[in-house]
């Protein structure tokens, strides 16, 4: 699903943010990405959701070597990835419903086809009564849930989440993790970057750890 081999990443002439990162995410796996702030977690996610090219090394996504894949094919690859951004990145002029429906709309879906799915999903994350609310009127936790609903609504092949439970209480956090688990059982490969040790300890998922740009520790999934 995802393969990194000796990947390095630097922004401009600055120091390397990621160094010789090598790992594989198998299809259908559930993985936590941990590490202290500034370790390079967000940069690693950016490489995975094709926001930045690596400075060196080999990145393979869905079997495509990104160095040799045509840029025109990137849009199709990106549509297979759901991303929960740390800063949510919701469109303020659109309602919660339209924000969540965006991936389906980008895939060419019509409102007739997705209205029910989107409403049900927003209900599942506890926002059934906020369908028409615009992000500026939502609390941080509500915005986060809209962002998560947007990331999962199209049932992506790969789900990347950057601190997805940072703004919600523990109960909602566990509920969202169950949502990710459900999606994972349906075949989606999930990678969650988080500081929340309780989430990690409660799950039996694999953990990869970044420290100072290097992948220094890996824990296999517990059965």
């Amino acid at each position, binding site marked *: 699903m995802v393969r990194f081999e000796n990947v390095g990443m630097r922004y401009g002439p600055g120091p390397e943010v990621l160094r010789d990162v090598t790992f594989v995410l198998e299809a259908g796996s559930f993985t936590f990405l941990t590490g202290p702030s500034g370790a390079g977690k967000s940069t690693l996610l950016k490489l995975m959701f094709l926001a930045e090219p690596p400075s060196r090394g080999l990145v393979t996504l869905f079997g495509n070597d990104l160095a040799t894949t045509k*840029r025109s094919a990137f*849009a199709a690859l990106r549509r297979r990835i759901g991303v929960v951004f740390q800063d949510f990145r919701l469109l303020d002029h659109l309602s919660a419903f*339209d924000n969540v429906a965006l991936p389906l709309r980008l895939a060419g879906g019509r*409102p007739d086809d997705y209205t029910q799915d989107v409403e049900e999903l927003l209900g599942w994350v506890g926002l059934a009564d906020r369908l028409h609310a615009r992000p500026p009127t939502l609390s941080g936790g509500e915005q986060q849930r809209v962002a998560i609903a947007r990331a999962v609504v199209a049932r992506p092949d790969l789900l990347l989440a950057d601190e997805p439970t940072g703004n919600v209480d523990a109960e909602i956090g566990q509920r969202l993790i169950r949502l990710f688990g459900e999606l994972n059982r349906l075949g989606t490969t999930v990678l969650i970057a988080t500081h929340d040790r309780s989430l990690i300890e409660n799950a039996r998922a694999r953990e990869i750890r970044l420290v100072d740009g290097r992948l220094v520790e890996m824990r296999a999934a517990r059965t």
Partner: protein
Amino acid sequence: MSAPARKRGRILPREAGAAPLDVVIGVMAFLAALALGASLVADRAAEGWRAGLSGRLTVQVLPPEHGAPNPALAQETDAALAVLRSTDGVVHADEVSQEETLKLVEPWLGSGAVVADLPLPRLIDATLVPGARIDLATLTQRLKQAAPDSTLDDHSHWIARLKGVADAVIWSAYGILALIAIATASAVAFATRAGLEAHHDIVSLLHQMGARSGFIARAFEWHYLISALLAASVGGILAAAFFLAAGGLESVGIEPVPFLPPLSLQPAELGWLIVVPLSSAFIAWATARLSVLAALRRIY
């Protein structure tokens, strides 16, 4: 039971700061419509001049440049008339009266007793059978034999010069239209870049979520197409009003400038002005699309 489909929100928010671009496009469209109207007026005038002069001949029987008036001028005129009337292809030939001749020179020399005393040539106006081909060299020779002081003018020189002037006006108008198109495209490209900058977060997110370049471009191009269509329509309507007002001035008795065609447009010609908003909208659409696609190519 499935939930009723919802109306989809606009991908791009409505822009509050687009009014200056609308004004620019409106003014450009007004100027473009004036230029297009001018080319139509020039084209019609050239056609009118050509229709008025072709198919006709003018014979001048000239008075002597110095000395006493030629007493045989009248006889020469009659002889030239006889030659013309006996020529195949000439439908009608008649002498232009003294009063009409004076009217012809009035714009240059004015009127009055002094002008009336001037030694003016005798003029013969001949109308030809439409499409008739007359051997002008032979006719000139016959006229010279019958009336030694006569000269023959088939107006081809004037027609060529007037056509040259009209063509210059028409091509100048086309040049102005091209410049306006370039200026409009530049303004839209500038506004599109500003729009991309203003909506960078949205564009970046859509790109990140796998939106095709065409999807993002469509959000911009439709915005600029509609804006340009509305703004250019206002400019085109103002230009049409200008041409209608010009026609109105003539109808209330305000004389047009001598020898210049009237500035008003015929109803069928006014219809051509619709080309201006349609072209403006197309230019805005194409420019916005190309600008957005070029900008997206620069994003990873």
